[in-house]
């Protein structure tokens, strides 16, 4: 019985850790604000899964209570974050996080890895296009660069 429970816990923890790790990597590597937000949510879910798993393993409800809290908080957070993202998008017409580094030290030069094309607000339509991030995969440009929506 114990071995089975332990096995089950391990599996869930692995899944949780994977979810957390993917979320973390996604948060660090992507520049689109919506994708970063999704990654953060994914990290939360990874933690939630491991909490539920621990709760079951120790046979109490604390883990699950905590998870319900997390879901509640995440819902609020989603509302706030999406509203924020919308505001930011309206300012610059672009979802690239690299456009926002106003909180740097006043005497630090802005970090620019590549000049972004000047896109006036709503010039390219009501929806933003995804900005390239990370290492560019070796894919045909015509197919990959074209996205009708996110």
């Amino acid at each position: 019985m114990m071995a089975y429970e332990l096995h089950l816990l391990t599996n869930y923890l692995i899944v949780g850790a994977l979810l957390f790790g993917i979320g973390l990597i996604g948060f660090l590597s992507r520049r689109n604000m919506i994708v970063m937000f999704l990654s953060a949510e994914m990290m939360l879910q990874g933690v939630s899964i491991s909490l539920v798993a621990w709760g079951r393993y120790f046979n109490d409800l604390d883990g699950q209570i905590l998870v319900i809290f997390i879901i509640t908080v995440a819902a609020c957070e989603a509302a706030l974050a999406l509203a924020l993202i919308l505001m930011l998008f309206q300012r610059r017409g672009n979802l690239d996080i690299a456009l926002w580094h106003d909180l740097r030290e006043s005497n630090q030069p802005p970090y620019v890895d590549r000049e972004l094309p000047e896109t006036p607000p709503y010039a390219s339509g009501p929806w933003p296009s995804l900005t390239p991030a990370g290492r560019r995969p070796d894919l045909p440009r015509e197919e990959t660069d074209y996205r009708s929506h996110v």
Partner: protein
Amino acid sequence: MFSIPILLVLVPALPLLAALLTAALGKKVLREQSHWPVVAGIGLSLLAALGLLAQVRAAVDHADSGQVGYEQVVRLWTWADVDGALESESPQPIGIATLDFTIEVALRADPLTAVMLVTVTLVSLLVAVYSIGYMHDDPGYWRFFAYIGLFVFSMTMLVSVSNFVMLYVFWEAVGLCSYLLIGFWFQKPAAAAAGKKAFLVNRIGDFGFALGVFLIWTTYGTLSFHDTLDATGLRTVGVLGQTRLADPSLYVGGGVATAICLLLLLGACGKSAQFPLHVWLPDAMEGPTPVSALIHAATMVTAGVYMIARCTPLFHASGEAFQAVAVVGGFTALLAAAIAVTQTDLKRILAYSTISQLGYMFLGLGAGTLLGITAGMFHLFTHAFFKALLFLGAGSVMHAMGGVIDIRRFGGLRHRLPTTHWTFLIGCLALAAFPGFSGFFSKDEILVALKENSLYGPAPSLYGILYLAASLTAFLTAFYTFRAFILTFYGPERIPPEAGDHAHESPRRMTVPLVVLAVFAAFVGAWFFFTHGFAEFLHHTPSLAYAGMAAAETETAAVHLKVMILSAAIGLAGIGFAWLLYVAWPKTADRLAAAMDALGLYGLSHGKFFIDQVYDLLVVWPLVGLARASSWFDRRVIDTVVDCIGLAPRGIGAMLRSLQSGMVQFYALAMVLGMLVLIVALLV
């Protein structure tokens, strides 16, 4: 009309009121009329003091025989009262184990105080009137009179309080007034430096005085002069109170008594400019001349003499302390007279003369006999008049000469300044102890006291030497006084260019005080000599009437007459010598100076025995060096360390600033890395 307590309070209160009024209204309202409150205040104060003197005189005659001397203590209020401040095994006659520390603000009326009050207020009034003319048009006119009023208040309090702490307070207060008035023209660097020097040198003396007061407290367990009865009927025996005076065995003798007396003497040396601490008085001549006359000749500098006279029983208890007083006084008298012989600044000659005459007073006190102490006080009394007269005369000369005071630069002024000339002559005759003038009688009394001590006293050879020193001083005094007088008023008329068209007699309000003082300088000595009033009156002072004193009376008329003839001869010889050198054979003076110079004596005297330079070398320069080194250490070392500590956060911040790129992902990465570090740290 007024009773003694009211008069006693009025004497200091009126000048204080005047000073406060002048200080408050002088600048804006009174301006050129600022002298009125102070002159009126001092004038009324003089009337009160005279009334007090009359009442004390009357009371002395009817004093009950059970009392030692005559005293009346007016207790105003209690300033401090600490219960059980001292666990004492000291020889309190009542044998109390714990003693209360009480400072009573109490004024006392006795002959010594009455005489001092009259002297102080009389000279102050004349000097204040003189100042109306002398300080005319000075921008600090109102300030001057406010200070003078404050000084008269402090000085009258000094001589009438009945507690060592209060004595110390007003001792400091007159020092403060002296400082303010020496540095009255503080724009002049020499005046500012002189004020500072006077204050600092006095600080040394005052430190000794304070230690003396502490020692009196631990020895006697009280600081009051008078006996006090508290509410429970418990009697505290004052240091100079009736109980102790009636039974001299209650005084502590031996080493403690000597220590107390020497510390008090140090305080007196500071205030009265005696030998090791005399250096401030000549420099104090930078102040206005009325100040020199009032504070640095007639009144404040005599505070030391007053204090020693007041503490006579303490000095008697020690035995040897009076000899220390006499030695200090004798040495100072001779030293200052030797310096005064070659000085060329009229005010400085008078300053050294003051030091010398104060030394004379100390000699009189140092005799330790009733005759000697009353002689010292008598000399204080006469000196106040003739030295104030001389200083005011010098001020009148200075006024006419446009501020020039160097006797080499003017001469033959007797026709231009007739009143000043005649009054100055009377002052000089009094100072030179010309027979018949006041200085002659008082100085003679001191010499008699010394002579008697050398004949009948416990230390005959010491007092014999001091008698010779005093005689030599008398000769030098007569010589330098008339040197200054002849060089100023006789010979061909010379007037320095600074005088301009000013070289005329001073206005009436300056000459009238001169004439009044001249009358006093001429006649006050003879009057009291022939009536014996002064000494007999002073004998009723408790400190002088006490039981330990009575035995020491061995005055003989023969000694008196011999000394009197001798001192008259000495005074005349000094005057004659000055006349020979500066009138009869004018070349001889230079030749004698050259001969003395060859022996090194002239330079020594002219350089004031280089005491200032020795003090510079031994005290001032090491301290200045220490101050400079400390300043350097503070600026260079401590400040650098502090600055480095201040710069460190800024430097560290500058290093970390490049991390603040504003990039969200970098912050996230930093968080992740930090978390990893924490995890690793937890696991390891």
